[in-house]
């Protein structure tokens, strides 16, 4: 093995660590922002006792959860019960691997053993990136389903069942929405998708402009995939107590909690990358750090709308949700993909 490979391997591992930590921090920030914003939406202040503006609230929460007694109810399926929270969190983190966060590799200002170190703005530039995302996305569902099933509680079970049905259904329109985008770009690699958007119209040829329908479908599916309101049926506090996580407390619940938010963040990154031009923006090619900024702004905007939606819209009923998916969303996305293909065919052949 040559030195270069080993170094790049080490760099890669460090990168993975950094990204994972960054995502977990983003989760913490996200919870905080959400609580503050929900406070504002309901005419309140939200947490403001710990840290400036309550900024340390989530740290207090995590401390508390960490020190909480780990109850394992006697009636659960032990192994699966303990595994489920991890199964929910890890895939959510993994999906981030293919997202390019900037336009060009960064070169570190120093060398190790004479080798210059460049860091790619992605962890893996898979050429079937979109497929990877879809595949990993459905893995996360297992955590929730298994958690619901192993708890041996009727509420959890119902929550788990709902999740499986919901997530499986929403994969389809989500995939089709992506397909419409892929058809235009001609590649499944996320880097290509972003570069494509960056190279026309002065970097503003965002796919949302040509594929608004696909974007909306994707947005809706993203809410459903992440179990966010109005599709938060796996939890449905008003009906199923806490849905699949009814029997989970302490840190185990903390992991589920984190998984939901990480999922939501990652999905927003993907959405921003595929439809909103990712890192692209003025001078992003020249100064890659600028690209990160652009991406973060876009993601923050998407996340804000998700919180906004949560504060204002009631929940859809479970069977209506399924009907909506199969009878409306799926036909629409199929039609959209077909129309795209047709237009492309007419234009280019």
């Amino acid at each position, binding site marked *: 093995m040559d030195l270069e490979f080993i170094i790049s391997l080490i760099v890669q591992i460090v990168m993975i660590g950094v990204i994972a930590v960054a995502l977990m921090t983003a989760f913490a920030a996200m919870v905080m922002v959400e609580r503050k914003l929900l406070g504002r939406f309901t005419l309140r202040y939200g947490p403001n006792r710990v840290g400036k503006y309550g900024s340390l609230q989530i740290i207090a929460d995590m401390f508390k959860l960490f020190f909480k007694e780990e109850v394992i109810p006697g009636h659960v399926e032990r192994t699966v019960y303990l595994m489920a929270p991890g199964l929910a969190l890890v895939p959510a983190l993994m999906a981030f691997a293919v997202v390019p966060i900037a336009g060009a590799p960064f070169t570190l200002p120093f060398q190790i053993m004479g080798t210059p170190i460049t860091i790619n703005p992605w962890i893996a530039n898979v050429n079937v990136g979109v497929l990877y995302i879809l595949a990993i996305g459905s893995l996360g569902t297992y955590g929730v389903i298994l958690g619901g099933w192993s708890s041996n509680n009727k509420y959890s079970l*119902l929550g788990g069942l709902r999740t499986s049905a919901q997530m499986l259904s929403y994969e389809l329109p989500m995939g089709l929405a992506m397909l419409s985008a892929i058809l235009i770009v001609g590649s499944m690699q996320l880097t290509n998708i972003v570069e494509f958007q960056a190279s026309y119209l002065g970097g503003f040829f965002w796919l949302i402009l040509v594929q608004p329908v696909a974007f909306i479908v994707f947005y809706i599916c993203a809410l459903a995939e992440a179990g966010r309101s109005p599709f938060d049926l796996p939890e449905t506090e008003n009906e199923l107590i806490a849905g699949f996580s009814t029997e*989970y407390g302490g840190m185990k619940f903390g992991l589920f909690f984190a998984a939901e938010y990480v999922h939501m963040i990652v999905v927003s990154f993907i959405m921003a990358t595929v439809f909103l031009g990712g890192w692209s923006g003025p001078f992003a090619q020249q100064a890659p750090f600028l690209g990160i900024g652009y991406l973060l702004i876009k993601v923050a905007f998407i996340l804000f709308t998700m919180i906004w939606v949560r504060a204002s819209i009631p929940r859809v009923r479970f069977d209506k949700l399924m009907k909506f998916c199969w009878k409306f969303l799926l036909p629409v996305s199929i039609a959209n993909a077909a129309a795209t293909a047709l237009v492309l065919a007419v234009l280019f052949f």
Partner: protein
Amino acid sequence: MTIEAPPPSDNGVEVPAELKQNVFFGKLDDLYNWGRAYSLWPLTMGLACCAIEMIATGTARYDQDRFGAALFRATPRQADFMIVSGTVTKKMLPQIIRIFNQMAEPKYVISMGACANGGGPFKEGYNVVSGIDKFIPVDVYVPGCPPTPQALLNGIIKLQEKIQGQSIKTVPWYRPEERTEPVPMPILGPDLIDPRQVSLIKDTLEKARQPEEAEGDENGEAPRPKRVVKPPKLPTWDITPTDEATALADSINQALQADQAVVPEANTLIVAPEHLVAFGRHVRDDLGYELLSNVTGVDYLGREGDRFEVVYHAYNVRQPEKPALVFKARAAEDKPELPSLYGVWKTCYLQEREIYDLYGINFTDHPNMKRVLLWDGFHGHPLRKDYEEAYYEDPVKPFPSRWPGGDHARAETRNPFGKNVIYPQDWDIDQWTPDEVEHNLDHVIEARDIKEGVDFDTDRIVLNLGPHHPSTHGVFRMVVAMEGETIVDLEPVFGYLHRNHEKIGERNSWIMNMPFTDRLDYLNSMQNNLAYALTVEKLAGLAVPERAEYIRVIMCELTRVFSHMSLVGFLASDLGCMFTPLFYAFEGRERVVDLFEEASGSRMMCNYMRFGGVTYDISDDWLKRAETVTNTLERGLEELHTLITGNEIVLSRTKDIGYLSPEDLLSHGVTGPMLRAAGIKYDIRRVDPYSIYDRFDFDVPTLPDSDIFCRFYQRILEARESIKILRQAYKGIKDTEPGDIMGGKKGYIFRPPAGEAYVRTEHSKGELGFYVVSNKSDSPWRYRVRSPSFINLNALADMCKGGKVADTIVTLGAIDIVLGEVDR
């Protein structure tokens, strides 16, 4: 143990080894306590009236979330502390303890309100636990009835202080040997059984069975002389039949082709039990009395002839000008039995069960003749006049222990168990086994044949929603059987907040009941006050001055607007709307309760009206502010309307859900906005005007579809009409004489003449009526609340069948129940 002083260190820098550890722990403690103190996740658990103030604590003005203490968790596994907010009943206690045991350490308990602290106003009730701390350890007590939100916030801050005083070294929950055992679950037997007291119970009963010794006790003191209790006077009044009653009785007798089936008495009819069902059919089908609004029992203990009486009040809804039909049936003491009218009016399903529960009158042919408010296995029928609860002292108040010169030993101090429990003397606890099946109730549903209409074979699961559930609006329970997510059957279970309102009411003096009515529908204390005041005024023939009438109307309509707004808010959160609409609605409430606080002295429990008027006058300044508040409310209402009514998801969740035909609604005894949302224009303020409602110009809106959407939208329409009334009342009250707020003559003792009276009012939830019987003494002989929430729930099962779980929650929400009134 002696504590040795640490050896003096010479330079003062070196830290001894064990102290080092303390320093380390000191730092860790800071962090540990900081995290726990500022991250307190409460358990979503509202028990009674106090829960409303608990919700208010979370809303904009108080914002519990500032302290990091408002991430309400519905599951005990994730919660850190439990706010026992309100009255703990014996029926509810096992669930509370189970939830407490399920919470993970470290866990804390805040006992909120007089009831949770020690029984509060309902202390002597036969179904009330006099203080939650008799069973689970309490960390912070918050006094008040209800405590204001500020008080609860203070309680939370106190809890944080307590947590900050703890040390990771000494807290018991990390040491397996010091861990506290789970609290043993109390058992519901003839009364509540604390498993820790089984042997005490056995001994006490054993002793009680011994013949009493006439000698003094071991201290040589002479035994207390037995007090001679004078039985209360039996109510009697003039029963010469009125002409109308005689004419009606004759025509009905003719129709039934029996001579003595119906006998007139005063303005009522006495129906012979064997003709009761035929009579019911006749008056419903031929005379049009479709709505049987009130069914209640009365115990005339000591009367010659039949001891029990069941009184029925029926109305003709389509021809509201026809007078009320009041008929009675009587049952003997040795065989209290009457035919059930369930086949004629479905409303009897619950109302007859209630009579069975409280009076022990058996209704033959009733489909499910079981107790409804208490649990099966409870000993005795509490509303019988000879029933004595654990803290019984005298038939009526004031009890001798509270009376100057009386016996100062209160019944509670004499109770051997230290709680308000009492067991039948001949009960043998060793032979007795708890009835497990009764408790899980699956059998109720299993027993019914509900296979029809299901097109493929799936496993049915029986799911318990409640009594501790975030969306049952308190401690209400529904047992549902589901195929997939479709509801095939539903059985409501009541009584988790049965606070023995009526029993306590019959021991209270007339005026003492006024503050108790506040606690019926605790969102609507003013309307409850009014209904009770009107009833007693009718009995006593009191006139109310003009100004007081206006004040009453203003108070009641303000309440109505708020009540409807909060329904919209609650319904929206039942639909899964976060809390945004609810918090917006509570903004309006804050303003209204501010006005109430100023006028009456209390935010929620106003206790504002009196027989013949109101307690305090209102000032011009108050009126001016009330006008502003009305404008704000109107804006708030329209805002909610624009936010919610047109929303696609709301429409898809509410349209065509929970349908029930107007005929069925009437048969179930449903009244109020639900009935009007089914197209029946029936508003008691119009058809049977009380107070001065006939002076105001307002419409009675109706909607045609009888689904959830109509029920929800109906509330908005009605709130608008109330605002119209308010504006007229603000104008009208200007022409009245300030200060003239009490009619009748002043006096210390109030004794209405003997007789009976039933007055119904249009409450925000439906027809609220009070039925009282007076024996011309200080206390009512019979005090009955016809509570709209309870009776409207009759229709719940029929509305929910065939829907989804989510629909059940919304259907329940749209009925608009308040548990204080459902279970009383």
